[in-house]
């Protein structure tokens, strides 16, 4: 009985200890520009930042994907397990503003796993705000300017041809 209890306790310790270690580690709230500044002093630390997911998820190998998170104008590559992207529906691009998410993960200024890239290995992702379609006004005056320009160009071309034929130069 005591041996079984000891085994269970040992197994629990093995499973829980990394999580406890993570919980014990401080989490630094930061932003994209600070992460990319390479002077943040956060290399190897657990960071938390918010931003918009942009473009698309890219395969990252080992059941992971790359998601790029645009935080205060600087996009950061976040490597996360496939299942973590389940919350993400809208990726930002011309037609849409992407979902706003809060990422917590370990920052590597030169990640050994990814050829020295600066990245964040996500440990959790939280949806803050769902993305939406972006409205772009169609400004018809541009069509007017373009057509006037084409008419001027056509008139100029006709005049040049007439002059060439008549050698009036």
């Amino acid at each position, binding site marked *: 009985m005591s041996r079984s209890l000891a085994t269970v306790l040992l197994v629990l310790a093995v499973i829980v200890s990394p999580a406890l270690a993570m919980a014990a580690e401080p989490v630094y709230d930061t932003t994209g520009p600070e992460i990319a*500044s390479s002077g943040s002093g956060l290399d190897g630390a657990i960071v938390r930042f918010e931003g918009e997911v942009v473009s698309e998820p890219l395969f990252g190998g080992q059941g992971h994907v790359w998601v790029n998170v645009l935080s205060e104008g600087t996009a950061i590559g976040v490597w996360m397990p496939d299942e973590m992207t389940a919350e993400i529906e809208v990726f930002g691009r*011309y037609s849409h503003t992407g979902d706003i998410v809060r990422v917590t993960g370990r920052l590597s*200024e030169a990640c050994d796993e990814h050829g*020295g890239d600066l990245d964040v290995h996500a440990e959790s992702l939280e949806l803050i705000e769902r993305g939406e379609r972006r409205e772009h006004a169609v400004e018809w005056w541009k069509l007017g300017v373009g057509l006037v320009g084409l008419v001027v*160009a056509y008139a100029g071309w006709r005049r040049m041809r007439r002059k060439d034929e008549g050698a009036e130069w």
Partner: protein
Amino acid sequence: MWVGLHRRDLVAIAHYTGLLVSSLALAMIIPLVTALVAGEWGPALDYVCGIGVAAAVGMLLALQAPRGVHIGRRDALIVTALAWLVASFVAAVPLSLSGNYGSFLDAFFDAISGLTTSGLTLVQDLDHMALAHNMWRHLTHLIGGQGIIVAALSVALGLKGGAAMSLYIAEGRDERILPNVMHTARFIWFVTAVYVTFGTLALSISNLLHGMELGRSVLHAFWATAACYDTGGFGPQSQNALYYHSPFFEGITVVLMLAGTLNFNLHADLWRGDRTEIFKNLEARALAVNIGILSLAVGLGLAVTGAFSEPAELVRKGLYHLISANSGTGHQTIYASQWIGGFGGLAFGAIILAMAFGGMASSTAGGIKALRLGLIAKGVILRVRQAISPPSSVVTDKYHHLLDVPLTADVLANALMVFTLYTVTYISGGMIGAAYGYPMGEALFESVSATANVGLSTGITNPAMPAGLKLVYIVQMWAGRLEFIALFALVASVVAGVRSRWSRA
């Protein structure tokens, strides 16, 4: 003797500048079609507007003289210098309407950066930019990389005979791959088409395997190919090449960058199956030595800073950025601040030198060029040999660049003059940047990047930088692409014209 421009010179200059600018109206049809296919109605109107402005400006200028009007060597230089400016002005019109630029100056900066294949950018919110505008930004690399004159010649836009030849030479081209200049221009586009097809195909596969949709895969592949083969440096994402997190992507783009920095004459030899020329050509050898020595310096520098702990990382980051710098491309897989924080010291200095030296002449690369460096090195050796030889002996030398050519004082003087002009411009731009309050090292890096049409950036180039510095970099990109002489011809003609008016008054 300084001779001012007469009316007949001015109308001929206006005529040919107009024809060149008109060709941009045709090129803008491609982003217009992209916008229509993608359902980007706002950007589609930006290109209708751009086409109208380019066609009207081009035709009004062309109307000043009859087709086929004679143009002399000096006027051809002026047309070349002006065409890059006026073309950048009209290329900036749709960009400035995109909403991704803070001002027309910023859009003009990107247009001239694109056409000169520099790659420095003042774009804002790039990750939300319309596909049509990204198409146009990357097309400017493709047009400018081959040369505006070559682009216009290829579509036979009224440029024929002696005028075509004068303009072709004035653009800094010296290759005579085929007897007819028009056929040479088409051969240049043929080589480009082969590489663009290969690059687009390979990168499309890479992108698809990385999970991109088919349409975006092909578009991103085409843009990256245009940016790398034309040694431009623009990217459709704000992270530039880092966005892809892919060694495969980096490998293919390195091949494209190296192909882009190869002299078109060497491309022609390779195409004909002659592989011996590339091994005995002075310029190819000089470039190989240059890349070899600077790779070692970058490797040593990175090892000292310890920014990349694994040897594979050091090679991947170091070599990618060295080739990017040496070829004048400017793609980067690090953030701007990492140039100081990560590269620092020796590696940083080696990257500046790689940008300053540049690729091969008659390619899409910028900078001093490997041929001139090779000539200067040979000149130094010749001088030493002359110094230690008996006074009665005559010591001469020759070099191999397509043919065996005697190493004369004229050849050396020309190489040294261009070397000096680039060096003075690099340093002057750095000092101006420093005067604006930026650290000298970073200011020099940015200045060299602009003048050598590279596009790597430590972060100085951004929409919030002072307008004065934006103008300085615009002039540097323009002067560097023209290799100074066409620009000087324009300035000298304007000065001579003003002086003659004053003396008459």
